[in-house]
């Protein structure tokens, strides 16, 4: 059973001349089987937290630590982190022209599993995983994310989640840009991964509507680069009603799912 531990995490982003602190002391522990919802207003640093954990080169950890089952995540390269069992479903998945989705998926699965999956099994596995997410098989031959709609990109992020079976999955606004049906399909996909009970999930979201499909064990309010309040799923309901105004001091419309 895996545990991701984040302690006193401070992160800065390097801009042209200066460096700006975005995360100012994040503490969070996620265990296998748990689902943590992270909710917070725009610009509060939610994506920064996910990028910092995944090892994006633009974000510099100035202090604090991140460990996965005791191993120092921050000392690992981006690909080592993924192979250690971390997965990040991105808010804005990147287009990679000329690289087919099928080639990409197979290359990733080979890297994460440590050996190339047997072709016959693999084809079946991908086909089934795509069918479960209502993804047309024709996508396999298209370039990675290129020209995909927002919703199609998100479905493919969850397809990768299903195939790579990480220990800890960080889902950054996977619900944004999805219509009602797509939200249901994607949520069911996440719930299937969750049902195994072996993955810990950090579910970053702006709205509560996805929480009606995926029940969080914990809800954390993120503001000003850190967690300002934690609770159970009732906290999400409060946020839905009153917005983030209590945490930011600013008037913000209630998050309507």
């Amino acid at each position, binding site marked *: 059973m895996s545990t991701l531990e984040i302690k006193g995490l401070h992160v800065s982003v390097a801009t042209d001349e200066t460096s700006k602190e975005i995360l100012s002391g994040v503490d969070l522990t996620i265990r296998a089987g748990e689902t943590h919802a992270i909710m917070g207003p725009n610009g509060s640093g939610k994506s920064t937290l996910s990028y910092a954990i995944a090892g994006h*080169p633009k974000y510099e950890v100035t202090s604090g630590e991140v460990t996965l089952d005791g191993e120092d995540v921050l000392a690992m390269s*981006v690909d080592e982190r993924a192979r250690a069992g971390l997965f990040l479903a991105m808010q804005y998945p990147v287009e*990679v022209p000329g690289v087919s989705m099928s080639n990409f998926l197979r290359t990733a699965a080979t890297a994460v599993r440590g050996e190339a999956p047997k072709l016959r099994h693999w084809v079946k596995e991908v086909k089934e995983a795509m069918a479960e997410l209502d993804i047309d098989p024709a996508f396999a031959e298209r370039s990675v994310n290129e020209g995909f709609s927002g919703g199609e990109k998100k479905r493919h992020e969850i397809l990768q989640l299903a195939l*790579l079976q990480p220990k800890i999955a960080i889902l950054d606004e996977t619900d944004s840009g999805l219509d009602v049906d797509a939200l249901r399909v994607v949520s069911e996909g996440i719930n299937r991964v969750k049902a195994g009970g072996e993955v810990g999930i950090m579910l970053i979201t702006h709205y509560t509507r996805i929480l009606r499909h995926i029940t969080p064990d914990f809800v954390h309010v993120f503001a000003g680069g850190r967690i300002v309040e934690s609770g159970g799923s009732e906290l999400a309901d409060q946020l839905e009603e009153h917005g983030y105004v209590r945490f930011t001091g600013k008037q913000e419309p209630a998050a309507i799912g």
Partner: protein
Amino acid sequence: MTSVAQTPHSHGAVVPKASRAEQFASFDVEAFETPGGREEIWRFTPMRRLRGLHDGSAPATGELTVEVDGPDVTVETVGRDDDRLGAAGTPGDRVAAQAYSSFTTATVLTVPQEVRAGVTTVTLTGPGEGKVAYAHLQVRAERFAEAVVVLDHRGSGTVADNVEILVGDGAKLTVVSVHDWADDAVQVSAHHAKLGRDATLRHHLVSLGGDLVRVSPTAVFAAPGGDAELNGLYFADAGQHIELRTFADHAQPNCKSNVTYKGALQGDGARTVWIGDVLIRAAAEGTETFELNRNLVLTEGARADSVPNLEIETGEIAGAGHASATGRFDDEQLFYLQARGIPEGVARRLVVRGFFHELLMKIGVPEIRERLEAAIEAELEAVGA
């Protein structure tokens, strides 16, 4: 320091200093002044590395060996007096004129009228290290012929040559010119393509090896309805100079040209130049043209220049545009692939392969495509990218 020439998308036409229409041309080398290197058409070329091809100080000391392998074509070796020679175009710079003035025999390869030929491979082997050769090749696709001709350049030495490409009325010709020279080689080459009525040309240039390679592919239209695609794929590594100068000359109505050149550079002193001239003359109503150049700078110390020139002398065109961009490796793409567990080296190779993918797919010859994929792979492995 990586030096990156940035030419972002540009909406208007970039008008060159001197009109391409006025560029001097002659078969006679003596009609050209010896270039010093400051001239517009030579300013990107390191003249000292031309080994005298440009100033008359490099007499022929060897030959470019030409071997043709193709079942459906006729091959002739002809003298300078063969009156078919020179039909596709006139040399536009001193080295091309030097080559035209210096070759002793020319090879004429003909795809007869209405014949659908299989793949013809022409292997052109350099004269050997320290030797100089001048050569001339003419490829003729007669009316309604269809053919794929691969020009496979290999070996060592210094070479200047002209390639004439005549595409007859209604003919469909694909030329794949692979410049996979040994490290020492220097080549300055001009391809002169002339398209007849409703003729189709697919010209693919692939430049990988050599110390200095400068190729100038020109497409001119002799009658309406022609369709020319000029594609180029190049990969320069440390110390290499690759210069590719395309020219689509529209003087006939309702012709199409499409230029797509993509290059990757890596290593100290790797240098590429792409000049894309398009001229739409007053008579060329209904012209449709687009040109695109993209360069991927993989390491520090490499430099890519990209200069699109679009001259339009008539308002009655169907469409004209160009785009050019040179960038470093896309860190976001790399991050995305690595975030899926893919090691950095593998991820880099995937991205570069992806960058060239579309152009490789356009080369309709699977054997050549596979060979080029392997060659690109080898280039990437050479520096452990």
